[in-house]
């Protein structure tokens, strides 16, 4: 039996490279997937522009952050971006509503099949893509100015006397906390508030909802505002934790859709669970466990190789595989969502 200290070392190592990054990444994906799932559930189409809506919201927030920084506004140790976030959400919501008026409402009024709306959303995606690149450029932007570490790996080692360090970044804590608050608020809104109930009714059966006097324009408007808010929050959290680059946001679309579909698209709880499932699969499948095994296993069982299932290059392949497997085996997802037709 390995000693307790060895177990603790293994646990720390695992937390440092798998648990904490996975938790933060999962929260970011969950927020993104919630937006996709909401649009799908209520407006009935898969919105491919969601990744770029995230990029747009983040861009507005970054520009606001820079402006605030130039004025000398700061809430250290928290990042300035948190003050800029509400403005980012408002601008992005206006932008999303305007996009809906300009593009999606046309097809909705014509009662076009969902696939037409989805294809229109690909067009919108390219437009947003270009707008973001046009305004802020295609390069990396860093805008996080808060305190960086809650716990530094080296400090952790000194504190505990373990061989392995555990580093916790403020952005990771912030991500998990904000995600938690947003998810709780959203669920309360959907379950308890009048508008939330109207939205769920609209999602369940559009005709019946219309007959009972629910104003469809209002439901659509609120849906876009919430989707834009979720996209902006997810994007800003991702950008603070990692970095902002328009192309990586476009690439996020795949894991986000995988998350929404794993959980059952159209199902909010499913989106959250799906986000964590996809994030942990990506991180766990590509992590090299050699050092963990060295701590835990007796000496003659220890692996020679890296004990890595897939090279880190295959991260995106993991989302893809999850997507394909779920669609083949259980198209409704874990929580019995809708089936994309």
């Amino acid at each position: 039996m390995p000693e307790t200290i060895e177990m603790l070392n293994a646990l720390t190592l695992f937390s440092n490279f798998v648990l904490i990054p996975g938790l933060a990444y999962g929260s970011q994906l969950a927020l993104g997937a919630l937006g996709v799932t909401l649009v799908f559930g209520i407006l009935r189409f898969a919105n491919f522009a969601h990744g770029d809506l995230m990029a747009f919201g983040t861009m507005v927030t970054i520009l606001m952050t820079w402006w605030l920084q130039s004025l000398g506004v700061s809430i250290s140790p928290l990042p300035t971006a948190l003050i800029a976030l509400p403005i980012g959400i408002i601008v992005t919501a206006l932008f999303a509503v305007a996009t809906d008026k300009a593009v999606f409402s046309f097809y909705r009024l014509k009662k076009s099949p969902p696939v037409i709306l989805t294809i229109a959303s690909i067009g919108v995606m390219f437009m947003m893509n270009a707008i973001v690149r046009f305004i802020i450029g295609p390069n990396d932007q860093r805008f996080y100015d808060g305190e960086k570490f809650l716990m530094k790996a080296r400090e952790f080692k000194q504190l505990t006397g373990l061989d392995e360090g555990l580093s916790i970044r403020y952005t990771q804590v912030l991500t998990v906390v904000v995600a938690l608050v947003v998810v709780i608020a959203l669920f309360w809104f959907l379950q308890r508030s009048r508008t939330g109930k109207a939205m769920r009714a609209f999602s369940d059966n559009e005709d019946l909802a219309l007959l009972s006097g629910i104003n469809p324009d209002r439901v659509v408007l609120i849906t876009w505002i919430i989707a834009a808010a979720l996209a902006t929050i997810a994007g800003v959290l991702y950008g603070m934790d990692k970095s902002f680059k328009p192309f990586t946001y476009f690439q996020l679309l795949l894991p986000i859709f995988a998350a929404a579909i794993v959980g059952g698209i159209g199902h909010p709880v499913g989106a959250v669970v799906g986000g964590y499932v996809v994030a942990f699969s990506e991180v766990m499948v590509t992590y090299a466990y050699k050092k963990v095994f060295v701590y835990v296993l007796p000496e003659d069982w220890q692996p020679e190789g890296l004990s890595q299932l897939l090279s880190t290059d295959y991260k995106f392949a993991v989302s893809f595989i999850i997507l394909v497997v779920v669609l083949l085996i259980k198209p409704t997802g874990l929580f019995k969502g809708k089936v994309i037709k």
Partner: protein
Amino acid sequence: MRKTLLATATALALSASMTAMAASHSEAIKVGVILGFTGPIESLTPTMADSAELAFKEASESGALLDGKKIEAVRADTTCVDAAVASSAAERLVTSEKVVAMVGAACSGSSTAIATKVAAANGVAMISPSSTSPALTTVEDNGMFFRTAPSDARQGEVLAGIVIDRDIKEVAITYTNNDYGKGLAESFSTAYKAKGGKVAISAAHEDGKADYSAEVGALSASGAEELVVLGYLDQGGRGVIQASLDADAFSRFILADGMIGDSLIKNVDGSLNGTFGTLPGSESAGAKMFLDHAKANGIDGDGPYRAESYDAAALLVLAMQAGKSADRASIAKNIMSVANAPGEKILPGQIAKALKILAEGGEVDYDGASNVEFSEVGEAAGSYKEVEVAPKFNTMKVH
């Protein structure tokens, strides 16, 4: 009326100058300058060409070249990315312009195409100032291809030597997933293993990702304590370093030329003290003399491959003088003898002096701006600066 007069005068002046040019043409020796004037390195090549032509100008103005011959540079564009365009441009230089030798090409792909299809076939020597691909060392060139830029294989060796000298016996390697990264990682690990080092893991990273913590997790799981980063300082290389510092997986890094620059220190959050690496270049007297000499002629010599371009052109001129003929075969034959010892050392700005020594039957050893010394296959051994962060990049030694 006035307009007609003006037009006639201009026409007359033009034709006069054209006859004058034609006259000088018959005397001039044509040398090709074939670089990627359009394409991915179009921002570098104009000054490279200017630097090469500076050496030609010196030779022409000295009056000592083959009893007062002049050199005329003919530029041609390889596009850098299209090997077929590169070969046909070179073909034009060789067959219709009748150049006696070429400075170029710049990109490794263009150089390979021209060396095998044009230079070797027609017996025209070419000296590339900037092609660093290791594959060019063994290209089938019939002895016509030379380069004043060192092969990346050499950098791998130098870096491996430095790492061993610092008593580091085990490393993890991460490289950017392209030809540069792969070639360098290969040459480094071969040399490092030959010197008794152990490579625990050699993994590629993709540029342009937002997060490299997974990559760093795999690298640190290998058990190595030191990380060699062969990438780009504004790309994935920096991301890997940042993620390593954040997770305290590695505390110092071993870098190659693509990673070294002040922007790395500025953009990485955390201390890079003790990080070291290699960067092509030397701090020789020749390098400084070239900067002054170029500046006096209105060229900014401080930039990538400008010194190497000047040297490439100078070597061609000296080879003509050494063989006492602007004949293609004679130039190709004499390049090695003017580049290497024995003979009097020649530095930038001393081409006239070198021409005189050669005319009197003496020997020269051209060192030039980049400390030229050719290996058996005619490529620069190359000197590399060993730099270390404390807390900026400082040059420790020149290898």
